[in-house]
């Protein structure tokens, strides 16, 4: 039996986690008071009773629910698409032999490091030509595939599906696609879930591209936060109530699926 760590380790970790949570508490704290509270010499310790009132003012100031729906739509379409194409290509790289597989996989790994965010100018030109700027589709398109998605699924499938199982399915007369569908996909499910969550979160929190293509009337949550901050920055109760509202959905997702999040990050790392 390994030795349990002492109080010092638990104490330091507790301090770190309190530090992690404190800014979120601050956001809710100020967001639940009236706007004058920030000018007091000592800030309050406990939340006040004005959160819903402030939230209502947020809804009056920016199209929050529309932003929420847009973010939900953009993030889930992107996540589903990344998982679909990532699993398909990742399976091919993990389990099938074909000419050029090694250089192509190297290409995938290298492009993971490429800052694709820097391609915004041509992306914008194309979207404008197509007349898509302003619609959520313009926000979705650049996120539908990621090199990371392919690499992540490949790393998982290499170990998760034994080669013998694939051969057995082939001997039994399964076509390639049927083998993929009935053998690889069920085995890949945990990794697919992690990749879905991860991509959902990355796209949800993305700011630069949605800010460029989406107008004030049709924003994502992050773009709406930008409007709130630039228009009402003197009213911290309002802005921080909005920030709290914007953060709650991902916090809920995190509380429900945090275990998978942690496992996914650690898994991707060990093999990467």
């Amino acid at each position, binding site marked *: 039996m390994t030795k349990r760590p002492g109080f010092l380790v638990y104490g330091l970790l507790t301090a770190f986690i309190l530090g992690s949570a404190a800014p979120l508490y601050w956001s809710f704290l100020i967001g639940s008071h009236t706007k004058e509270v920030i000018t007091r010499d000592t800030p309050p310790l406990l939340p006040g009773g004005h959160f819903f009132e402030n939230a209502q003012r947020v809804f009056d100031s920016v199209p929050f629910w529309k932003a929420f729906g847009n973010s939900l739509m953009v993030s889930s379409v992107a996540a589903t698409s990344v998982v679909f194409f990532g699993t398909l290509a990742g399976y*091919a*790289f993990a389990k099938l032999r074909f000419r050029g597989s090694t250089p192509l996989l190297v290409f995938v790994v290298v492009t993971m490091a490429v800052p694709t*965010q820097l*391609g*915004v100018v041509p992306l914008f030109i194309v979207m404008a030509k197509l007349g898509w700027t302003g619609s959520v589709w313009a926000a979705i398109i650049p996120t539908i595939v990621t090199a990371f998605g392919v690499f992540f699924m490949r790393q998982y499938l290499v170990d998760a599906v034994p080669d013998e199982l694939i051969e057995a399915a082939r001997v039994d007369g399964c076509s390639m696609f049927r083998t993929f569908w009935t053998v690889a996909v069920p085995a890949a499910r945990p990794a697919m879930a992690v990749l879905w969550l991860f991509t959902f979160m990355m796209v949800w929190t993305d700011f630069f591209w949605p800010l460029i293509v989406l107008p004030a009337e049709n924003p994502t949550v992050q773009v709406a936060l930008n409007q709130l901050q630039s228009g009402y920055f003197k009213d911290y109760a309002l802005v921080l109530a909005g920030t709290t509202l914007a953060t709650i959905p991902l916090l809920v997702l995190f509380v429900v699926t945090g275990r998978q999040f942690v496992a996914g990050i650690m898994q991707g790392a060990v093999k990467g």
Partner: protein
Amino acid sequence: MRTGDVADAASPAAPPPEQPAGRRSGARPRSAWRERLSRWDVRFSPYAYISPFFLLFLVVGMFPLVYTAVVSVYDWSLIGGKGDFVGLQNYRDVIDNPYFLKSAVNTVSIFVLSSGPQIVMALGLAGLLDTALRGATFWRMGVLLPFVVAPAAVAIIFGSLFGDRYGLINQALEWIGLSGVPWHTDRLASHLAIATMVNWRWTGYNALILLAAMQAVPRDLYDAAAIDGASKVRQFTSVTIPSIRPTVLFVVITSTIGGLQIFAEPRLFDTTLAQNGGSDRQFSTMTMLVYDFGWHLRDLGRAAATAWLLFLLIIVIAFVNYYASRRFGTIAGLRHRGRRR
């Protein structure tokens, strides 16, 4: 996928009848056909599975990046579209712009203030987590909490904590008898505030990646070190860190690439109306300059030139960091010379 579908239709659920010999003689044309389909299936399916990804990635990932170079040598307005070929004029204009050098320095300064402390804290945190904790998942989730908060939200929250007049941090400084810091107007102070946001959001995430690598370190290395009389701290610096060097490199490189593109944090930290990095651009970054050229000044040519210059900056700094952290790893890992690849 299409190859797969065709083959699927051709091979029913029941396995094909055994045809030990004479398959290719042409005596049974249907089987020969099926045989050929199956061979095509094996040969082309892999390409069918990878090509959707590659096609889409070329369109939405690679093409824009490469085409940025094309746009950057044209006079290209946001409204009017493509104009004359101007060669490197856009690059000259961008580099001559007084805000260019300022933004480049700010970007690197914020990055240095965030990445160094972040790696050190993440290593320490990972070391704390790499013990036989009770409720390990709880602690791991705890340190990951800030990662689910969007950069835009982080910037707003920290913008108020670091408020020049009523911020909690300045109030705290005044309680202990110090004077408040002009976090938004002073250049270095604003960089420090923005670096704090980055550190807050990413330390736990990086710690988990490092923790994963630490757990793969063979435990008998620690036993051997302990027998040699190495303390816990000594074991950490002489066994753990050298062993996870590749992962440290990975974290350094990914945080370089991400950190130099910082945009949401400085933009939303700004409470001036223009939101382009403070009244004197004291915390304007390169990505903000891309946005400023393209969507405020409506000059896509210069925006593209700036993006391409940022790309070069990222490559240079990534290489510098790669060699620097390799050296660092080598110094820390002298005792493991034999294990070096």
